[in-house]
């Protein structure tokens, strides 16, 4: 992903305080940023929040952008960090324990029941089912693996660009992506019967 001259010009104008240039830069990349964030979260509100957070960070850190890598690579790095921060914040919030029992009169206890309201595999149709399974399986993976898979397979970043975005050596990117694919395969093979349809 080479540096676009148009991007360099917009960035320089942005650095100079030209807010309209910043608006142009945002307009140019907001859709792509949103698509990436949505692939990670499957949630439109969270995706929009991540994109807004990312562009705020971009705006505040623009003076540090030297142009050694493409702006898009830098943007992906910031988007990924915003996503990781979001997940970190969620994990620090208190959740109801799935093991907590409900005390009812008479001393008897009943386990708290949490219904999975999502569609089960047998309720879904062919190609739609496969995509939903993929999206759900991705969400079940560690965030870092999720981000790398989406970057490579959906956003079409190269191994080198992913390495730049995540500050990883090329060999590490390749081996981690291979492990991520294997892990995803394991998750999907739990529904192998449906997965083989069509």
């Amino acid at each position, binding site marked *: 992903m080479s540096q676009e001259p148009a991007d360099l010009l917009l960035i320089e104008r942005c650095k100079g305080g030209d807010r309209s240039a910043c608006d142009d830069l945002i307009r140019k990349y907001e859709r792509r940023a949103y698509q990436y964030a949505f692939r990670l979260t499957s949630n439109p509100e969270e995706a929009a929040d991540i994109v807004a957070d990312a*562009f705020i960070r971009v705006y505040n850190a623009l003076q540090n952008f030297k142009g050694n890598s493409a702006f898009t690579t830098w943007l992906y790095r910031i988007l990924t960090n915003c996503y990781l921060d979001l997940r970190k914040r969620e994990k620090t919030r208190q959740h109801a324990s799935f093991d907590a029992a409900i005390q009812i009169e008479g001393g008897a206890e009943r386990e708290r029941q949490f219904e999975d309201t999502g569609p089960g595999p047998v309720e879904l149709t062919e190609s739609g089912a496969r995509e939903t399974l993929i999206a759900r399986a991705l969400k079940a993976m560690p965030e870092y693996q999720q981000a790398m898979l989406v970057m490579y397979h959906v956003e079409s970043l190269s191994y080198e660009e992913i390495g730049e975005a995540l500050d990883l050596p090329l060999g590490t990117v390749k081996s981690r992506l291979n492990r991520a694919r294997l892990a995803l395969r394991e998750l999907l093979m739990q529904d192998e019967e449906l997965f083989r349809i069509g």
Partner: protein
Amino acid sequence: MTIQKAREFFSSYHEGTLELGLRQPFERLLRSDAQLRAEYEAFARTVESLESMRAEPIEPPFDLHERISARLDRDLWVRSRSGRVPIWLAIRQYALGGIAVAALIGAIVSMQAGGGGFTADPFGATSQERLRFSADGRTVVLAYDAPGSASVTVSRASGVPLQSFQLQRQRLRSPITNTSLRAELVRVTAGEDDALLAVPGSRRDAKPEGKGTLGQFATALAGWYLTPVRLEAKDANVTVSWRLRGVNPADAVSLDVGNKSVTIDQESNGLLRLSAR
């Protein structure tokens, strides 16, 4: 080659980049081990499914850009209040001579109320004016109702742009503050509307007498009385000479304007209006 090692080569084999020396033992193992072969086939299907996600369109919310802009504006406003405005922004402000179009700080872009017609408001507009101003001390507050797609630009009278907005049937309300010592003349262009404003600085200008263009006179008025001035003139470069005295600018100005007709009025919106025909 072990099964475990073979799994490490799934990706490179699938991509066709596994080097020849490794490819042959890998393929031998695939042929001989049914379990490994099944795993690889599942792996290949996994990759294909991932690739198919690319074709799935993701439509962003229609107001994504507005949401990003609003968050950005809000972040800048919070930072400015806490003194955490990035240094480069501060340097830029000084480089511009201090006139801060404080539109980034506290600017509000909102959806217009439905229907036409504007009721009387602090901007003194009872007509269908879209571009309106009011004075808040030394600050000019700009209000603009974009009828459709429109841009609002605030620039120095010399043409150097300071701030611009892109609006889509939205209402913009923004302060324009001059943080330099001396009054400055700025131009506000909104759609087809255009206005010249002299915005006072933080210090009273020392000279009550002068000679210059109407633009310079408007600036002198603003600097002397520390009140924003709106200049309405076909030609702001017309030459006038002036002497300022007393506290009421409308009464206190004596002008030598030759054959021209120049009036100064105190408007209900708090601005002085300098009109020349």
